[in-house]
């Protein structure tokens, strides 16, 4: 039990009342361990963000129980939630959401200030985190002077500032190109592996499956089983077995992301199959 960073038990969220009532999340249970990366996927409107908001103490569940680091947060009064957020969670947003008037360093420092760390200590810690994310030469840059990848790294630094147990990331790669998106994924994996933090990601980005320890499929507010997956032997992408194109070779089935990979494979299977 000590290894559990975040626990959600039979959590539901309903909006509206009577005929207008909508159930966004229905009886969802989830146990996230320290150092684990959980990816929550699902179609638009499936309740992913609502679930993330409840897990991050931003939205109170209609029913069910949520606990972080063994402390129940779902029954806390509204006024206590900011303190829970600043001390137990780090948030990473799709739009980065850096404060435009502040430098990279100050954006991180402000998060520390909210937790009561002030002055030179806050400044030193903010700079140390940014240096650790290869942003030493961007400390005094404002968001408008940073690239998308740099902005997201600053946002990650801000999320890490108060040493949270859980990082909640909402579409962290959506506004980034493929290369930078991979870089952000690598960072998230490193944060989980090296620092033992739990990372919960809500995303449509299939690439994130590569770094996830668990992939959960949320549909109509409920977790459903994910389709079985395989690795495309040509491009090494993770593909859905049910929908992927396939080929037989040596008595075994292989699955591909597209016809191009399949054709390339069939032209010289030995190149891709290793005994």
């Amino acid at each position: 039990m000590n290894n559990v960073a975040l626990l959600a038990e039979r959590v539901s969220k309903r909006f509206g009342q009577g005929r207008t009532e909508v159930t966004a999340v229905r009886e969802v249970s989830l146990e996230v361990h320290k150092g684990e990366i959980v990816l929550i996927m699902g179609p638009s409107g499936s309740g992913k963000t609502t679930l993330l908001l409840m897990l991050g103490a931003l939205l109170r569940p209609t029913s069910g129980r949520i606990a972080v680091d063994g402390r129940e947060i779902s029954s806390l009064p509204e006024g206590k939630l900011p303190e829970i957020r600043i001390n137990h969670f780090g948030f990473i947003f799709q739009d980065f959401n850096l404060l435009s008037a502040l430098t990279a360093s100050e954006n991180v420092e402000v998060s520390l200030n909210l937790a009561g760390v002030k002055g030179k200590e806050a400044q030193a810690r903010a700079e140390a985190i940014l240096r650790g994310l290869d942003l030493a030469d961007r400390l005094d840059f404002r968001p408008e002077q940073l690239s998308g990848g740099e902005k997201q790294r600053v946002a990650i630094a801000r999320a890490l500032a108060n040493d949270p147990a859980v990082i909640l990331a909402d579409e962290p790669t959506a506004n980034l190109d493929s290369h930078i998106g991979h870089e952000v994924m690598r960072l998230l994996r490193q944060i989980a592996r090296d620092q033992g933090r739990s990372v919960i990601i809500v995303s449509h980005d299939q690439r994130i499956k590569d770094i996830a320890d668990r992939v959960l499929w949320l549909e109509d507010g409920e977790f459903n089983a994910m389709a079985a997956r395989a690795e495309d032997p040509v491009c090494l992408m993770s593909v859905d077995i049910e929908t992927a194109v396939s080929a037989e070779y040596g008595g075994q089935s292989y699955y591909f992301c597209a016809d191009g990979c399949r054709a390339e494979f069939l032209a010289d299977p030995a190149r891709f199959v290793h005994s």
Partner: protein
Amino acid sequence: MVSVARRNLFQEKTRLLISTGGVAFALLLVLALDGIVAGSLAQITAYINNAKADVYVAQSGVRTMHMSASALPISKVDEVRRVDGVKRVEPILYISNFVVAGDSRSLAYIIGFDPVTGKGGPWRLSSGSADLQHREVVLDASAAGKMGVGVGDEVTVMGAPFHIRGLSAGTSSIANSIAFVRMDDFATMRSQSGTASYLLVWLDDGVPAREGARRINAAVQDVGAQTRAEFAHEEARVVRDMTAEIMVIMNSVGFLIGLAAAGLTIYTATLSKMREYGVLKALGAGNGWLYRLVIEQAFWSVTIGAGTSVALSLALSALFALVAPSIPLLIEPGSVAKVFIGAGAISVIAAGIPVAQIARVDPVAVFRR
């Protein structure tokens, strides 16, 4: 601690300029008006303060020079002189009248004094002399300049021709100036021989002014004796009472304009940062933290405006002294304190509406696209 408020404020230079500029000009209105009234009061009491008598004696019941008429039998000079602790008594005559030069007329307080002692006469000359012969006058230099006359020229005072013997400085106000003539000329022309308007009294060393005034009031019938400070205070009060209502109205207008300027800019500044306030809430900022942020932003905006208004008013005061010496602008510490206290109130009120908006910011909105 990172001052998000200051950073936000200085990020939008145009908005900052509008906000602080609006506040500065509104408060400048308050300061300038205060300054003009304070300067006018200083001018109106200039004679009393510069004649430097310890006690001023008037007809019983008369407390001021402005808008008053006082007549004392000249015998009162000796009566007052006999009071214990009185060192010297000098009578003066006084009337409000016009000095005329050709087509120009200038309202003036005409003071009749004894040029032999010089007591109660002009205290600073810019040219000429105060050693008046018969039918000679000392005019205020700026009033003379406006009438286009100078030393040696002839003017009409109390209906009779006088030659200008000297020009005095510091003897004009926004409403009038002071003209000095010989007391015997004054008495002859106004048929006031044997009377004085006021007695200027100097006391022996060590006798407090208040005690001297008390002794005179006790010993001499039908007179009213006041210390210099009391007499000046009463004189100023006449003007202050006359201007009190307009001052309240203009001060209120100034503060309301300042409030509108600050309120509008703080409101728009808050609106433009609403998403960022949502982000801060999502990260863990409580409402109190955000309220302080907005109030601090309003405080800085208004304080910079107030500081600018004080600097501008001091510059304006120096400028007026050069180009319009008869319109004094006296910036007093009390006015500056009033402006800063008012500015503090403006910042709190101006932050009120944005604070209410921030209270309604839903951090969940940050996650909506």
